[in-house]
């Protein structure tokens, strides 16, 4: 049983609350029915349920939202979005929370933030993701020698099949750099 959401002591972090506005807007019509929580394949692994997360969002409780790992455990299967009786774009709201966490570089989500950022960096440089470069960038950014070891067996199997090859990160042609910069510029303005 989850505790009732405390609406009185919510920390008024204004800049974070402003960043949460697009996600909040997606969930305004939430009736707290819990269909999303009941449909989520990862609910068991989450510290609070999606339903509870939406209540935190609607009460502007940014502090509590970014103590949970719930949105980082969304695997974008869209089952909740499909089943939501209010037709809310729940999966998109999960992604918006991931984006806020990434822009704030919050340590709790370091693993997924670095993973996504490393992927995007390889895409920015070459236009297409180079799987081994992306993983190398990810390992370098995590500065934790245990993580690469966990991926080594799979990497070796893929190399044996000649599906991937060892790749030293390179600058590439900066193929999509102009688009990346433009997107950042527009997002920083809004």
């Amino acid at each position, binding site marked *: 049983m989850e505790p009732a959401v405390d609406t009185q002591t919510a920390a008024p972090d204004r800049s974070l609350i402003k960043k949460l506005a*697009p996600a909040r807007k997606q969930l305004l019509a939430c009736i707290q029915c819990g269909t999303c929580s009941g449909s989520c*394949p*990862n609910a*068991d*692994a989450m510290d609070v349920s999606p339903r509870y997360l939406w209540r935190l969002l609607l009460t502007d409780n940014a502090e509590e939202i970014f103590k949970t*790992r719930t949105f*980082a*455990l969304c*695997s*974008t*299967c*869209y*089952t909740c*979005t*499909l089943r939501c009786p209010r037709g809310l*774009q729940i*999966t998109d709201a999960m*992604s*918006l929370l*991931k*984006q806020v966490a*990434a*822009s704030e570089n919050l340590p709790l989500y370091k*693993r*997924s*933030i670095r*993973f*996504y*950022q490393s*992927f*995007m960096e390889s*895409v920015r440089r070459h*236009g*297409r*993701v*180079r*799987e081994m470069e992306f993983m190398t960038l990810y390992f370098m950014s995590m500065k934790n020698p245990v993580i690469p070891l*966990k*991926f080594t067996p*799979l990497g070796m*199997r*893929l190399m044996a*099949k000649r*599906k*991937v090859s060892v790749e030293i990160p390179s600058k590439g042609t900066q*193929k*999509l750099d*102009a*688009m*990346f*910069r*433009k*997107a*950042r510029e*527009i*997002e920083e303005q809004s």
Partner: protein
Amino acid sequence: MTYIYYPGCSLEGTAAEYSISTMALFETLGIELIELDDWTCCGATAAEGVSHLLSFALPARNLAMAEKMKAKSDILVPCSACYLNLKRVEQGIKDDHSLLRKINQVLEADDLVLKGTVRTRHLLDVLVNDVALDDIASKIVRSLEGFSIAPYYGCQCLRPYAVFDDPEAPRSMESLITVAGASVYPWDMGGRCCGASLMSTAPEAGIELVAALLEGAQGADAIVTVCPMCQMNLEAYQKKASKQHHTHYEVPILYLPQLLGLAMGLTDDQIRLDMNLCVPGSFREKLANTLQPA
């Protein structure tokens, strides 16, 4: 019939056998696939994790490239994640003009413009809705009789856009499995999530989803998929899932064009089963015994 072909990054690397078998299958069916000029990454699930605008602009770049090749055309996409990203743009700009304007501001940096005239099609959608089942049947030279095949659709070709199948109880692959002579393994997990990138970012959660699917398919000779992410998760982590659940999962995870290719008598070079990570000896033996010319 002609389609613009968007392979996507995985099909150049870890899912190369999906691309090879797809091209061979469509060639056999007499359908032309023209690779999209200068295509780039769709953003996968990574773009969405860091930038809302890029998660639209990256796939949009490919739609704009396709429009440049042919104003009105269908893009055939085998990867479900790529498919959804492209589809999201196609659907999103229909009633959101400010989104289209923002996308075009970004695309301008690459001298491109998106109008929204091309249509994104999943490989499975094309196979079941554009190709006549009789045309596929006429190419079958070896019946896969005796094989029980579990159809696995995953998430993103089904949801959130229910374009060509029931998004919770999908059945579109069944006619293709039976036309190959195999039987459909009865299970209700065809549309369940494989964990996607959680296998890397939160493996303790991801492995449970993988294990549930492998458990559900116990008794099938193979699982057939249409998504490189699903294929990799189900194929690469069988040992890990077995260890955690004190059992022994060993089941080949084939791409749909590989399965059809086997029944159509395509060559090893066109199917590339040797590139799959898990093809047990018992499966190969059964294939050798079954694959007598019909």
